């Protein structure tokens, strides 16, 4: 493939532009509004026991 392959280069350019457009479309429709803020506290809430159990924590 070089500059003489104008038809192929054009086809690939169209494919690349379409790819980017579709990926942006997928992100726009399915991802954009789903903001997920994850920090240490939300991980603790997800991973650990809902009510802190300090007494049990010190048992070996």
């Amino acid at each position, binding site marked *: 493939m070089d500059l003489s392959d104008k038809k192929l280069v054009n086809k690939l350019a169209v*494919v690349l532009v379409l790819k980017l457009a579709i990926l942006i479309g997928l992100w726009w429709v399915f991802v954009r509004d789903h903001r997920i803020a994850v920090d240490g506290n939300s991980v*603790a809430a997800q991973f650990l026991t809902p009510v*802190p159990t*300090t007494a049990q*924590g010190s048992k070996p």
Partner: protein
Amino acid sequence: MISEQLVDLSRLQFAATAMYHFLFVPLTIGMVWILVIMESVYVMTGNVIWKDMTRFWGKLFGINFALGVTTGITLEFQFGTNWAYYSHYVGDIFGAPLAIEGLMAFFLESTMIGLFFFGWDRLSKTQHLMVTMLMAIGTNLSALWILIANGWMQNPVGAEFSYQTMRMEMTDFWAIVFNPDAQAKFVHTVSAGYATGAMFVLSISSWYLLKKRDVEFAKRSFRVAAAFGLASVLSVIVLGDESGYTVGEAQQTKMAALEAMWETKPAPAGLTLVASINEAEQKNNWEVEIPWVMGLIGTRSISKEIPGIHEIKVKNRERILRGIVAVNALDALRANREDAQAKQVFEQHKTDLGFGLLLKKYVVNVNTATPEIIERAVNDTVPRVTPMFWAFRAMVGLGFAMLLLFGLAFWSTLKSACMQKPWLLKAALWMLPAPWLACELGWFVAEYGRQPWTIYGVLPTHLSVSTLSVNSLYGSLAGFIGFYTVLLIVEMYLMVKFARMGPGSLGTGRYDQEPSHQSTLVQA
């Protein structure tokens, strides 16, 4: 608790996009070195047919690259969108090699690919060869950093959990870089890529030879592919053995599952060739075994045992119980960071924290886990045996079939007799899908075999996913499948079209299948 449907859909989406991405990757990794070989011969000999070979196979390489590029980016985006807890928990470590890959390797690769295609008339022969070499180095560096990241998921070295930030933090960058799992995985995977590139060139060249067109061009391509393919497949097998050893060291559950090894056998363990697996009763109804081989592959010794699934489960039950203590101590530390006793208990048990978290699949509070629930979590620690066992054997079988094919092809080309063996040319043509199948099976064994973990022994898969809606995942999954199917059709259409046109598509006037065909092919 996270819904199982959400976890399964997130896994399915990642698996589908990753396996699709890996249709393009091995061909890029392998073909780029074949281009280096062909162009080096051109620079050394000045024979223009080698330049035509570089340009023609480079054109097919370019189609593959253009269609494949960006399919990997969607994987990286998914870490943020679908695996937000994973990204927080291990982002400090996992993000580093991915960032280096983008900044160092991908930029180098992409820049050099541009120069490769559009530099033929602007650069000297030697300069262009340098560009091709840098393109190959960039491609392989890219694979290196990705596999360092993946190797860390299999064997998380050089990192430690911080209860203050609730995440893993890097303690030793070089331990991550030189992680034996990552290094073994890298050389095994790129060798598989080289074999894929070689098979691609060998198959298409065989088709030209069967059609008796562009014979001199095809013979040379066949010869390069046969030699490169033979060396590559031998490397895949030898380095796969090394990969097996590292798995045996770091991931005993994966090793036991892919060998259907229910009981610990006396050292050195035999290699089970085939077996009738009975998952319900956790045994093999019958099996055919080669003595000693598994012990030698998995331990590099004749006295070291490889633990069976039952023994591993007993150990994992203990780790889950210790993990409950770790979760409770972590709870206490989160409530009071100065609690010295809790800190001491946590330090003693933190290596088992991930095992305690396995219970979160079934209960909100790990302290309420009944013996039945603990038993379910114990069973979860070993992936299903049947798919692992057969996927591994299919991969290895394909590897040896390719070794036979490349061996015969190399022998026939040494004797300048490939044209007299149409059966060999037909076999080479029909074997075209083999390396892709082997690569996908290999990734299945690596990733499914790591379950139930995203980070082996540290972070369970079910705690790694984002709290997305199931409908959102169904929508994006359908979007990806539809979009990627169209892309695959375009890829196949362009590949078949330009492969059928052959070197005549270069428009040099020296080949068949072009209007201005002249018999001016330069003889070697």
